[in-house]
């Protein structure tokens, strides 16, 4: 997670931990891509806001529609493939 200089302290604040098995954010499991760089935005919203999965999905869609987050313009956000058979 050394991409952003602030990410070390941010990781500590978010209680983000990643290892070979998986990753956790504030003690909750979060989906992560194979390289360990990208966390699921929906899961993160769900954990940080403490809302349901559906509410998190709606919130994420709203953020995408409002163009606050998008894959094309912000390199911080990117779609990744997640193996569902794990």
């Amino acid at each position, binding site marked *: 997670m050394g991409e952003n200089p602030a990410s070390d302290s941010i990781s500590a604040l978010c209680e983000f931990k990643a290892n070979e098995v998986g990753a956790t954010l504030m003690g909750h499991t979060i989906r992560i891509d194979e390289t360990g760089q990208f966390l699921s935005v929906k899961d993160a919203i769900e954990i940080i806001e403490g809302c349901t999965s559906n509410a998190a999905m709606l919130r994420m869609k709203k953020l995408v529609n409002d163009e606050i987050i998008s894959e094309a313009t912000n390199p911080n956000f990117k779609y*990744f493939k*997640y193996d569902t058979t794990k």
Partner: protein
Amino acid sequence: MFFRAFYPSRSELGYHNACAFCVLTCTGTQFISAKLTFFSTRRILGARIAGITGLCGNLKGERAKAIHNHFVQAGVRVEAGDTALYSVIKQNCERVNHAATEGDVVAVALPGTRHAEHDDVGELSCAQDCNSNRAIQMVSNGRVIDSCRENAVNAPNIQNLLNQAPLGFTCSTKRFKRGNGIPLSTAVPEYMTSSQLSLRKMAQQALMSEIHRDGMNSKQAERRMLAIRDDFTNFAERYGQSGLRVMPGGGSFGSAVVAIEATHQKMTRRQLKIERKVIASQQIDGVDDATAPLGC
């Protein structure tokens, strides 16, 4: 006989284009089972940890707010090159290593400066960009002052609001300078980063276009400038560009970028001088060889 298949909804599948197929087993008229098999992967919108923390500004809840505040503060410390931060030390170290490998003498000579991707000064191109923004902003500022005089608008008030827009303070510029240890004789834009200078420039242009278009009087112009200031302050805060940032030694960005460009120019001149000497000596050697008598 009818078939009935249960497909997962888009929300259950993740975000886009999940691949699934349905295996149906039917005997006679009775529907027995529907089994979904995923043989591919889901596409999930992901973000780096920095992206998630940046996103917290748009999320609800105390935790999101705390993370966002911390993110902004950490960002400010990184911008200021706080050497107490491990990441800044690491970043500087990487930069010097890279510069040494690439033979970038200026970069090696300035190990305290920061990385181009994250900072406004440090790399020569960033310093040039910042300097260019400073120059354009100064010219644009002159035009704003002239326009204010032509339209009998209170120019100092407008300047005050223009300073407030990117930095996010609400007191007078003088008080802001005193509170932050900025010399009273130094203009506040000297302490703005390249992004903040751009915001100030945009605010100036927004005001100028409206003054000329609508022929505003003094009060209307100030009211409009207040609205522009609020818009730009919100924008700067939302994207982490707000707040005063200073160089590690406490100096301004303006003086830092001028120093970097000056150092580079000096190095370039020195390099050119060396090259000219080498070329000249080669020419002299060539002449000597040509004129040397046989047998010498």
